[in-house]
């Protein structure tokens, strides 16, 4: 059989590509097949379960600055959220990372303009965080499913191992709830919580409704640290849950509901004082 040099090179090239491809395909097939089987895993018996975790926030119960600080630092400290500050002590707006923070009414609800509303409400800070939307835009755009909506309980979760740091989710989120690690966060963590990992540079992070606490039967850190009656957390799908009862009987608003994202964080309007 005679074959010229070009033909030989072409056949050699294609065979090596196919050979490499086949080994790669079988290797990846192995990884996908060798996940854990259902009889190898279980939930903790004390874990809190729900079909649709939701939160109700009553800002009227947050009376002092300390109330806010306790709630915010409860979250940021146990999750090893770094604290970036400029030399003059002001917040470094460039690299800052925050999972839950304060915002004025006009920033939390920019499309609910009401110039003559009560001055107190105009100045009152609102706690804002990831809304764990029913129809999250961030999940829709993530190219690797590094951020995804958990089927069992509706929490919009982050898989830091898979995130490629493209920041498409940050562009998509209508609430500005997400932060990016523009540099290594470890030098800026005040006190490490040794039971929770840190993140590394180049990944996006946000509030996760404390999945690691729910898994062991505890409520989210902010809910626990908030002043009494300030934050409620429960299963919106459960007709008898506290959050469901509040939302069905009192007037609550959500941030930017017209966008169709279906946020799961409800803000009680009027508070208990005006009930």
């Amino acid at each position: 059989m005679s074959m010229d040099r070009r033909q030989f090179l072409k056949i050699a090239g294609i065979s090596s590509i196919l050979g490499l491809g086949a080994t790669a395909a079988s290797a990846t097939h192995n990884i996908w097949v060798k996940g854990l089987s259902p009889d190898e895993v279980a939930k903790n018996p004390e874990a809190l379960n729900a079909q649709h975790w939701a939160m109700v926030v009553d800002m009227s119960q947050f009376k002092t600055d300390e109330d806010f600080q306790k709630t915010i630092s409860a979250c940021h400290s146990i999750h090893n959220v770094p604290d970036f500050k400029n030399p003059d002590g002001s917040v470094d707006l460039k690299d800052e990372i925050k999972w839950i923070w304060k915002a004025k009414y006009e920033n939390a609800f920019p499309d609910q303009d009401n110039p003559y509303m009560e001055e107190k409400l105009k100045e009152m800070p609102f706690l804002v965080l990831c809304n764990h939307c029913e129809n999250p835009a961030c999940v829709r755009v993530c190219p690797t499913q590094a951020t995804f909506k958990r089927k069992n309980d509706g929490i919009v979760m982050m898989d830091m191992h898979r995130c490629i740091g493209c920041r498409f989710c940050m562009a998509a989120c209508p609430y500005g709830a997400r932060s990016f690690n523009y540099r290594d966060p470890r030098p800026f963590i005040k006190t490490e919580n040794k039971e929770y990992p840190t993140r590394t540079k180049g990944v996006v992070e946000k509030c996760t409704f404390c999945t690691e606490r729910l898994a062991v039967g505890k409520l989210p850190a902010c809910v626990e640290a908030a002043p009494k009656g300030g934050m409620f957390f429960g299963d919106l799908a459960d007709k008898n849950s506290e959050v469901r009862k509040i939302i069905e009987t009192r007037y609550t608003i959500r941030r930017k509901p017209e966008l169709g994202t279906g946020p799961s964080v409800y803000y009680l309007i009027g508070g208990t004082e005006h009930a």
Partner: protein
Amino acid sequence: MLEKGLVGSKKYWAWLAFLGALAVSGVYYYLQQFNYGLGLTGLSRDVSWGLYIGQFTFLVGVAASAVMLVIPYYLHDYKKFSKIVILGEFLAISAVTMCILFIFVDMGQPMRIMNVVLHPTLNSVMFWDSMVLSGYLFINLLVGWVTLSSDRKGVPPPKWIKFFIYLSVPWAVSIHTVTAFLYAGLPGRHFWLSAVMAARFLASAFAGGPSLLILLALLVRKLTKFDPGKEQIQTLGTIVAYAMFANVFLLGLEFFTAFYSNIPGHMESFKYLYVGLDGHRELVPLMWTSSIFAAASLLMLVIPRIRKNETLLAFACIMLFISLWIDKGFGLIIGGFVPNMLNQVRTYWPTRQESIITLGVWAIGFLILSFLYKIAITVREESEGVEIEH
């Protein structure tokens, strides 16, 4: 054929050395960024996409513009483009490579890039963007190489290449539509949430890319023995004129919707860009330069006497390219992030390192372009007088 890019005059090698130096400094600063993190750029929690993604967006348009040569020649038998379609295809290769490089330098975890392939996500526009861009690069490499080597041998190209040539037409439209979809489907950002986004992108692509091609063709005529042709350049000029008109018109439509409706969310980004918002006027001079250049170049392109004068045409193309670069490569991106989702004005400006890395990527792109053009032009010079049959 690659060896044709490795022989050249002293000027050719000096040009490559210059580009190489820029590329190396870009790589040097990228390594710094890789070590420190993207904090080395001007990006922030509020403006999370900036110069890199802007350049990527602009260059997808330049890449798509190859189709403005392919359509007249292959679909409408405009034989006059026979010798220069290759210039469009090679420009597309260079532009898509730059796009991929800009994505790479913008990623927080570039080592995990394979996650996009290992975990394909069909609802993510970015997944589709990576697929269509890779496909377009492959198509142009294949078509460019096969047709050019056939020209060199003086034979018509194999019949099966026609499939890929025809495929490149809708594919070129798709790469820029998908890139527009990155922006046009995000619910919170009203500056981008517009149905005409994809149309605007395509119009500016078909104006910006061919205008660069005109400039390159004029340079080729000056520096080599290959003359792309006066008539060919004029046809390109007409294409640019129509496309630029569509682009300016569509931008005007956006202004109308924003300001006639008077909805704050729609107006605020425009205000930030063109008159300033909350005392922040960083981008105002740039945006007005872009608009003035756009209007001036459009006027020059539309008047036949001016368009037919090649010096004035070149001047108009330079203004047009700069105008579109500012508009799409910078203003469009920043405008989407200012004001942020809590209605706060937090601004952005690229850092020194970010700019050098950007320059480095452009240098790599032009290196590839120069190398490929050298090959194509040498083939044309050597086969002068030989008719091309595609």
